[in-house]
């Protein structure tokens, strides 16, 4: 009993010191939160470029209304960065309550920006969610370290991502197992691979994957960029790219727009290898008729880069309770299993399936992951994302070399 009180006191001290909501100085029970959330409207700002994801969010919104009487409006954004600028603009316009964003789908650089500008709801709320107990903190360390930045409970994990490649077995039966094999393959078959142009997310991801493999000391990537050694650190990467570019699709003079465009090029047979951040992407695309059913997935020897995506509550949300209910619902075994179903979305869970109660575990066991999805064992090791500061530096260096010709 007194232990709980101490935790409460401690929390009260921490939250009070953070100068957040007045009523958060008294820790509330989940029942209170559920009660206060009733009738709230949660504006959930989430990237809206994928119809399947949009339908999933629509489903979750319907459930939340049914269970808690909370209305969820999916605000489809084209770029999460726009949401960040919007919150910044609201802060500077003095709109400290009643902000237009209640929950945002976020990770990496965008999270880091909001966190460092203190534009997120008080720390620790994510761990108070009832469904937090199922989160696989041990097995998936990225659920509390977002691109090496500690989440401090300011965002709640939603799904996992890992870089996965795909190939059409009709045209390329045996895919390359490493980046150097990929380069060799392209030297013989020019034009059959490309990556989106950075700063597009997937393009930057490809750069990071290559950098992790090529940098002399990978531990440098856990720390902020050291501008003194940056040029030298990325030299192996750009040497590799200098050689790769003439053998890329369109000779490296034009680039695919994004992962979906790459997928389309793979379907058209313009390229032999595409990649995605969702291990179930190939299966879902086959299901949709966007890829022929001869496409399969593969990963590189030594592992591929992976991360977690989250939902976060801005500091000026007026529906924090409703947003927490939504975040908690998105973490529930029911919602997580549905999300992992490739027919629905195919996004891997953040939960520790083995630790779930039997009936919830069954939901996952029943899933048919699809013909082109690798099993968790075949997915291999997940490499951590570099510190966020590497992203903008890499993008700048890339643009200076290839983007301004």
């Amino acid at each position, binding site marked *: 009993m007194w232990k709980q009180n101490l935790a409460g006191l401690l929390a009260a001290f921490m939250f009070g010191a953070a100068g957040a909501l007045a009523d958060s100085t008294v820790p509330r029970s989940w029942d209170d939160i559920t009660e206060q959330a009733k009738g709230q409207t949660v504006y959930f700002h989430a990237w809206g470029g994928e119809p399947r994801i949009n339908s999933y969010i629509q489903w979750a919104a319907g459930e939340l209304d049914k269970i808690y009487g909370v209305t969820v409006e999916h605000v489809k954004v084209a770029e999460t960065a726009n949401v960040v600028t919007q919150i910044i603009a609201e802060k500077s316009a003095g709109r400290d309550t009643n902000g237009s964003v209640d929950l945002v789908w976020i990770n990496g650089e965008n999270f880091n920006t909001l966190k460092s500008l203190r534009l997120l709801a008080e720390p620790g709320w994510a761990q108070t969610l009832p469904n937090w107990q199922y989160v696989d903190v041990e097995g998936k360390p990225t659920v509390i370290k977002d691109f090496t930045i500690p989440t401090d409970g300011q965002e709640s994990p939603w799904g996992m991502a890992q870089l996965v490649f795909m190939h059409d077995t009709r045209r390329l039966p045996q895919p390359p197992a490493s980046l150097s094999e990929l380069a060799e393959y392209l030297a013989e078959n020019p034009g059959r691979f490309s990556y989106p142009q950075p700063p597009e997310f997937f393009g930057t991801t490809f750069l990071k994957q290559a950098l992790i493999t090529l940098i002399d000391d990978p531990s440098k990537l856990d720390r902020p960029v050291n501008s003194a050694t940056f040029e030298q650190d990325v030299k192996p990467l750009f040497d590799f790219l200098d050689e790769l570019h003439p053998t890329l699709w*369109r000779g490296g003079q034009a680039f695919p727009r994004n992962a979906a465009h790459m997928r389309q090029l793979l*379907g058209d047979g313009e390229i032999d290898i595409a990649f995605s951040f969702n291990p179930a992407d190939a299966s879902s695309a086959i299901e949709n008729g966007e890829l022929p059913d001869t496409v399969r997935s593969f990963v590189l020897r030594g592992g591929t880069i992976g991360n977690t995506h989250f939902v976060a509550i801005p500091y000026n949300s007026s529906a924090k309770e409703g947003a927490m209910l939504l975040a908690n619902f998105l973490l529930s075994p029911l919602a997580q299993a549905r999300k992992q179903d490739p027919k629905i979305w195919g996004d891997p869970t953040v939960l520790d399936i083995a630790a779930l109660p039997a009936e919830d575990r069954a939901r996952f066991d029943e899933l048919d992951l699809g013909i082109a999805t690798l099993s968790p064992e075949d997915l291999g090791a997940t490499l951590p994302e570099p510190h966020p500061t590497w992203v903008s530096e890499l993008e700048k260096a890339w643009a200076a070399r290839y983007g301004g010709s």
Partner: protein
Amino acid sequence: MAQRFQMKTGLGAGSPKLPTLLLFVLLAGPISAGLLGTLLPAFGYLPALGASDPSPDAFRALFSAPGIWTSIALSLGTGLVATALSLGIVILFTAGWSSTRAFDNLRRFLSPLLSVPHAAAAFGLAFLIAPSGFLVRLVSPALSGWERPPDLLILNDPYGLTMTAGLILKEVPFLFLMTVAALTQVNVKSISRAVASLGYGRMRGFLITAAPQVYPQIRLPVLAVLAYSTSVVDVALILGPTTPAPLAPRILVWLSDPDPAMRLKASAGAVLQIAVSALAILIWLGFERLARNWFFRTSRTGRRQASDRVPRFLVLTFVIILVAVTASGFGLLGLWSVARGWWFPDTFPAQLTLATWREALTTGGTTIWTTFVLGAGSAICCAALVIWLLESHTRAGNVPGNRLRQFLFLPLLVPQVSFLFGLQVLFIHAQIDGTLLAVMLAHSVFVLPYVFLALADPWAHQDPRYARIAATLGATNSRIFRKVRLPMLLTPLLVAIAIGFAVSVGQYLPTVLIGSGRVSTVTTESLALAAGGNRSLLGVYAMLQLILPFIVFSLASLIPALVFRNRLGMRPTSTH
């Protein structure tokens, strides 16, 4: 009694001052406020992001962006070339073929293209000419031997050639219809008869006599095309180069960067965009002078060039290709919207399905509705304002001056990206960003000029004797307006509303920026899908971009026929 009516007219539409002022505020207000909102951050003043000291840092950052000069050159080059070629095609075609059957037929073909959003035309072109597109499929693998799409740099080529072609595809119909309208002011028939009797060839005769009279009338539309082409975003995103991209799409990328400093850089870019478009206009004015001198000299040589069969048929072929490309582009959009599993090198899809349409119509219902509300709302409001203005001028016994007409081109001459960004910042402060009303207001800035241009001429050409007869019969001003003028102008009014609707449907940047990403229309949705991999869904939304204006245009021609079904003299005639 009489006094009461006088009072009523005095308060109502008596003086054109109030509607003129309103129109001025509606156009100049957002533009000047937006420009200010762009200028201040460009020079380092954006308190919202903690920048309050004026500094040239944003411009320094802008000019140190890699490939910025290439971007500027691309914007200038693609804009000037697209405008010059479009104008050249239109003038030469008019010279060679005006008052022929071919000319009239093409006018009928090209008129509906006016309402087609740029993005839809660009998608159609992409589906046609991409290495995995329809043309290559047509010859593969049988003729070309290509089992797989050739690795050819056709779309997004670094020189912007495809982008220029995409712009020409859309600007030729616009300039052509503007020229057709201008031709009615010039007595082409008698002029061409006169020059023909002097032994001039058809084309040369037109060029040295009629063209100098036509050009001044289409000059503002030409400059609007130039300003648009040098600052275009949607066509550049679909067809343009990316290493680097032209200036305007790059500004948009900077705008959506999480780093606050990038917003300042984007503002500086927006200011630079004004300079680039202004420079393009200056260069154009220089060309105009050269062209004038050349015309002057060549017309004095007295050369006749009586036989111009070859150039005439060349330009006709060119125009036919242009129409064919546009039409087959739309055909492909339609085909993709019902295709499933259409892999290279299949010429036609293996399976046809309506599933994509069903899906889009169920999940995209709000989007379609939003598009409709925005289009109808802005078009009807603008039409009401224009009618008010025209009616008050009529009652004052005059017509809107030329200066007003020129002023209406203002929103078409200022690069969109340059003032919409500033406007967005203001709207955020006013807390009305992302609302339908704000987006409708932004759309109206672009809808109003077209509605006015579409309505002003039919209004002016109305026979004033009808109103006079009604007045002698004792009808009041407002009764004349309701019972005589409005019914007689119903057809052009509905057409003007339809044009306004189509303009609204095609707006990409105002919707994205002022809507804060929260207002989605079929155009923003299709641009978002262009980045995705689902061509069938893209086909559906691109088709919706065509279908929605088409429905409204159909209504515009149906309603008068219904309303006037028992008025023989009011039936739309087929020659119209």
